[in-house]
């Protein structure tokens, strides 16, 4: 999956457990766990807003795009 979720990193920086994050943003622990492992199909803006508000970070701090190998080869081809 090209979108990498780095919530673990931000939780470690803020010294917060996922259980506390789940309580503060109103999600179940299970959903936070799924989000941490990247096994979700999408994140609502509302959820992202709450996470960024609690962890005092930017969306880019917890979400990262990593192109897959074929896409990387295409983007690295020189123009002309």
């Amino acid at each position: 999956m090209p979108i990498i979720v780095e919530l673990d990193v931000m939780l470690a920086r803020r010294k917060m457990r996922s259980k506390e994050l789940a309580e503060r943003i109103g999600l179940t622990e299970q959903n936070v766990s799924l989000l941490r492992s990247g096994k979700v199909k999408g994140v609502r803006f509302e959820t992202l807003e709450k996470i960024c508000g609690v962890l005092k970070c930017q969306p880019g701090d917890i979400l990262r795009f990593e192109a897959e190998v074929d896409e990387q080869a295409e983007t690295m081809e020189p123009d002309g």
Partner: protein
Amino acid sequence: MEQIYHPRPASLAPALARTASLAAVLLALVSVFGAAQWFTDPERLLPFLTHAYVGGARVTLSQGAWLLLPVIFAAHSASLLVALLCLARMFRHFGCAEPLAGETADAMRRGGIAFLVFTLLVCLSQPAISWLLTQDNPPGERLVVLSFGIRDLLGLVLAGVLVATGHLMALAAELRADHRQIV
């Protein structure tokens, strides 16, 4: 003032599942008993068939009819049995914490298809059975009875509704599962 207890719909589902299962068991027992009766003493069942399928006209039970009639009725029983078992499975899933699940929709759809097959068999068996019972009659006394009434139409409509609703529920369950993966 006395309070009237209204059971929640979800709590009726297990009871309905048990009723459907019991109906399936009874149907199976009646089918087995009927088959045993037919192969040991078909004359006892012949008056019932005569009245139901040829309106009391004269019938002649040939060897072919004696073999084919239980096959036709076995097909009826099998399709209705499958429909009842699917309905029992559907009600069991309704009674669970996740009533709107793919399994529930699948059970409803399969039950509807089985019931549709049963209804079609009932419609088509009237001419087939009337022909089988009278094919060995003298010329002029052979019958093919065709009938399609409001009861048959209602059965077809109900079966169609079950199939369509099951299909829609399956789509809804898929969407719900998809939405659950969005946090």
